[in-house]
Structure formats: C-alpha cells, structure tokens
C-alpha cells in the first residue's frame, strides 16, 4: 500500500512539467519546492530533536549569498594593502560551498546555543538571523547591500570542455529542485530511521533518561543542527541561482515563520509532514491571489492555518495516519521514528 502510494507520488512529481504547461504555475511549484526543502531541514531540528530554531532562514540566506557570491566572484579591499579577490567559480562548486558554509554556521550556532536551551535557544537563533541580515545589508562592498546581487548565473550542466548546458528554462529547474528535494528527503530519512535518529528522538522525549544510557546531548543536537543548516543552505543556493537576484530581505523573519508553519501544519517529527505542509502553504497564497483581494487573502490564509492547528494539533500527516489506521488497520510496519507522533491520544495522557 505504502509503496503504491509512493510510486504514485513520484510519478505525479516527475511528470508535472509534461502536463503543466502554464509556466507561471511551474514557477510557483519551483519556489514551493525550494521552501519545502527548507521546511524539511527545519523539521530535523524542530520535529526530531525538539529544538525551536526561529532563525532558520539565516542558513537559507547564507547558502544563497555564499553560492551567489562565489559564482559571481568578488573583489574586496580589506585593508590599505590587502585585497581579497575571488574569481567567479562554476555554479555547482559555488552551490556546494554554500552548503558547506551554511553547515559550518549550523555547527557554530549549535555549539553556542545548545548550552543555552529552550527559550534562550530561540532568542539566540532569532538574533543570529538578524545579525546576518544586517551584515548582508551593510557590507555593501561584498553584498551590494540593498542594491541586491543581480545577474547571478544559473546552473550549468554538462561535461567541462565537451558539452555544457545552462539552464534558464523552468522545466530543467523544476527537475533540479525535485532532485535536491528527493536527495534531502533521503538524507533526513536515513538519519532519522537509524540509531542516530533514535538518539535525537530520545533527547526530545526524555533528556535525563537519554543521557543516563549514554547518549551525548551536545553531539546529537549539533549533528542535527549541521545537517539541518546544510540542507537549508542547499535550498538557499537553489533559490539564488533560480531567481538570480537576491537582497538582504531574504533573511526576513517572515520566511522562518513560513517554514515553521509548513512544518507544524504538516506534522512535525514526521517525514512527510513538511512536504505536505510545504505544498499547501506554498501553493495556497497563489490560489488565493487569483480570486481574493490582498487583505482577504491573508485573512483566509490565517484562518486556514488556525483551523489546522486547532483541529489537528499534531498536523495533517499524523491525523491522516490515525484516520487511516482507524479504518483500514495499521500501515505496514510503522516507521519507528514517526511512531511517537502517530498516537496523539496516549500522548495527552502523560
């Protein structure tokens, strides 16, 4: 059953550009896909380790800026006598560097802030995103500040020297985003359904007990932060080379909020949750725009969100799962890591 569903999903996703000829909708799907990747990465921290990072957009933006800057090249006069110049790098190399740099900042934030947990962690992450935004805004020599980095080169494919193809068109960009999304999903899935993921979930569920059996809190939280930040950085890189212009607004708090909404409504701590939430809240604004005025749009958006959170506090995916199990019987061998979210009733009994 599950495999059939999965194949259907994949078939739909893979054939979209063939039947969806409206390029505007394809564009929406691409940006939605990019944000869904970011939401999946946030879910690793928020859903599986239970750490609320409200500065997640920082990693997205760092990935975007790093990748954009390296592919454009830059020339910095650091001191009177010292110039730091970087020649334009191939896009794929810049993209990988963006992932690494974002991951590195994930490690830094992990190191600093997992000493201060709970509310303090939230504050540290928000501040971090704000600081990075201010840097992007004010370090004009490097980032062009509010004038934005423009003419960012798109992705190129091919064998160097033999044949190259630069992808300006929507269709190949769609497949690129889909590919990165699937890869990110697989990475997260591998981690979460392993001993590593069990350790993360154990820390979320009962930290004293987890440490008493030898699970190193810092180590697993930092690991989650690094992987999460790196994947967010990949999403940022995709964004930069697809939209091809970025400015410091990429670091706005509202984007973090969007990611959090995607994760919470879809079902935090489930693998499918951020995908479902990401698709809904990526596409919903566009659908609303087509028939409602701007004020009405946001009211409907907000009301819809509140309804989901109110009636399905664990999110859409866990709700569907328990509905399915109630009618048809248990899904074939529930994935252990997700199980903890699958039964809201018992959880409230604590």
């Amino acid at each position, binding site marked *: 059953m599950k495999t059939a569903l999965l194949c259907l999903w994949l078939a739909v996703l893979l054939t979209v550009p063939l039947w969806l000829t409206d390029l505007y909708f394809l564009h929406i799907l691409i940006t939605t896909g990019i944000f869904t990747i970011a939401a999946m990465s946030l879910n690793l921290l928020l859903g599986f380790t239970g750490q609320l990072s409200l500065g997640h957009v920082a990693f997205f933006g760092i990935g975007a800026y790093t990748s954009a800057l390296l592919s454009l090249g830059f020339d910095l006069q650091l001191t009177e006598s010292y110039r730091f110049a970087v020649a334009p790098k191939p896009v794929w190399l810049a993209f990988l560097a963006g992932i690494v740099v974002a991951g590195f900042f994930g490690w830094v934030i992990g190191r600093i802030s997992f000493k201060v947990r709970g509310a303090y962690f939230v504050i540290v992450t928000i501040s971090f995103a704000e600081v990075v935004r201010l840097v992007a805004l004010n370090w004009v020599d490097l980032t062009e500040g509010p004038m934005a980095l423009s003419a960012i080169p798109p992705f190129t494919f091919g064998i160097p020297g033999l044949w190259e193809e630069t992808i300006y068109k929507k269709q190949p960009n769609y497949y690129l985003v889909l590919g990165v999304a699937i890869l990110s999903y697989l990475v997260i899935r591998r981690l979460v359904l392993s001993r*590593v993921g069990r350790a993360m979930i154990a820390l979320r569920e009962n930290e004293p007990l987890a440490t*008493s*059996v030898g699970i190193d809190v810092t180590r697993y939280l930092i690991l989650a932060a690094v992987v999460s930040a790196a994947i967010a950085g990949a999403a940022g890189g995709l964004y930069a080379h697809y939209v091809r212009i970025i400015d410091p607004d990429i670091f706005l708090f509202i984007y973090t909020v969007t990611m959090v909404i995607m994760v919470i409504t879809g079902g935090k701590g489930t693998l499918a949750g951020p995908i479902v939430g990401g698709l809904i809240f990526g596409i919903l604004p566009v659908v609303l725009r087509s028939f409602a005025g701007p004020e009405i749009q946001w009211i409907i958006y907000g009301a819809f969100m509140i309804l989901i959170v109110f009636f399905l506090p664990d999110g859409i995916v866990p709700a569907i799962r328990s509905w399915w199990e109630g009618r048809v019987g248990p899904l074939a061998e529930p994935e252990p890591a997700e199980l903890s979210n699958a039964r809201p009733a*018992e959880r409230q009994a604590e």
Partner: protein
Amino acid sequence: MSAIPNTAAPVLEPVLEIEHVAVHFGGLVAVADMNFAVHEGEVVSLIGPNGAGKTTAFNVITGFLRPTKGRIRYRGTVLTGLRPHEVADLGVVRTFQKTSVFDTNTVFENILIGLHRRGRCTAWETLLGLPRVRAEEKRLREEAVEILEFVGIARRASELGGALPYGEQRLLEVAVALAARPSLLLLDEPVSGMNPAETSSFMRLLARIRARNITVLLVEHDMRMVMGVSDRVVVLNHGKIIAEGPPAAIQQNPEVIRAYLGHGVRGEGAKRA
C-alpha cells in the same frame, strides 16, 4: 534465608569509591562527607528516611550533579566532573526514582534507545547506508528481544512505554538501563508502587541480574526487599552515614532504629511520607 544465593566468595575489590563527598544546595546540606565503597559483584543498599540524601547521592555518582566537595572513582577513573553520558560510557547506569521511560515510544524502541552504547556506526556511515549499518541494526534488534525476554516484558514489545501498567513501566526502566550494558547498576526505589507479588518477582529478577556479574547499588524503602537481597546496607540520615554493615546487624542497630523512629526497619516496608 537470603533470597539471593551468594555464589562465589566475595572478592573484596572496591569498584565504586565515594570519598568525602558533600552536596550543598545553598544552605541545605543534602549529603555531608559521605564515604563508602561498593565492591565487585556486591548488592549494596543505600537506605534512609525521606530526604536523607539517597537520590542526591545517585545524582552525584552519575554526573547529574556536581559534588560540592569530594571525589568519586569507578574502577580507578574519577567520575567527578564527567557528564551523565560519559559516566554511562564507563558502565555506570542508573534508574530514576520517579518513573521515567520514553512514553511515546514503543517498549521495543525504548530498549533500542537504551542500546545506544552498543552501536558503533558513525553518522557518516549511517548517511551512506553502508552494509555494516544494516548489520548493526539487526544485531541491536536481536539484543533488544533478548533483553525484553530477560526482564519478562517481551509480549509488550509493541505497546507504548507510557501506556504500560505501572509495575511493568518500572520493569521497562530497568530493561532500558540493562540495555546500556552496565557493570554497575544503580536502582532508585525500583519496587516503589509495586504490589507484593510484583516485588517478589523483581527480587528474583535482581538475582538474575546479579548472576550476570552486574554490581548493584540499590536505594529502597521496602525493607523486606532490602534485607532479602543486600550483601551490605549503608544507612543515611540527614546526609550522613550513620551505619554500615550486613543486613542482620543493621536491623539491630539502635541508631538506625532511632532514625526510622516508628517507620520500622524490620517491618513490611517503611511507610512513605
């Protein structure tokens, strides 16, 4: 008379050494100048009235608290200053007085989490999905089944930890601790809240744990259990050790009787406050 046959003659080699340990909470002295040792293969009970400092002692031994003064060593390694998971890595594993399991995970997953220390694959190997990761997972699952059977809750494997009846939750806690392969197991009131039948069966479990060469330090109010399973009893009152010796001697000790004033050391189990 003892429920636990003392198989080999005890080799008196101290494994856990507690030297001049004190724990202060502000002005409150929870533990004052505590000195005692636990030897290889022993079952030692730490008893005392409510608030005597027993749980605090467990917390300092296992790294959940730092002692204000003093030093703790386990098989020669200084534990003081180590974090809880590092203490666990040395084979010292504790359970908690207040029932503590992974409520929203199944019993089987609880054990798998407990088996964390038994796995060696790194995050990279996991990400790459190397064959040894799969082999290790298979081995861990087999070990989990074995532990569930050892403790006697195998038929509960797929139920949620938080949904188990109380007595079985306490067994699950011990199973999770055993999964971490302790060489020294610290049990904080494992039978509190169990009925007499469950307590008796827990005493038999303790005998089997002991047969696996696991040294046990036990905090317990149930005197039938304490007197039945212990090689030695250490009595704590107001953070100080007031008596130490074999169960029979402790039962006769006037100072112990005074400390328990009316709670009855010989009785069916001390009344809880």
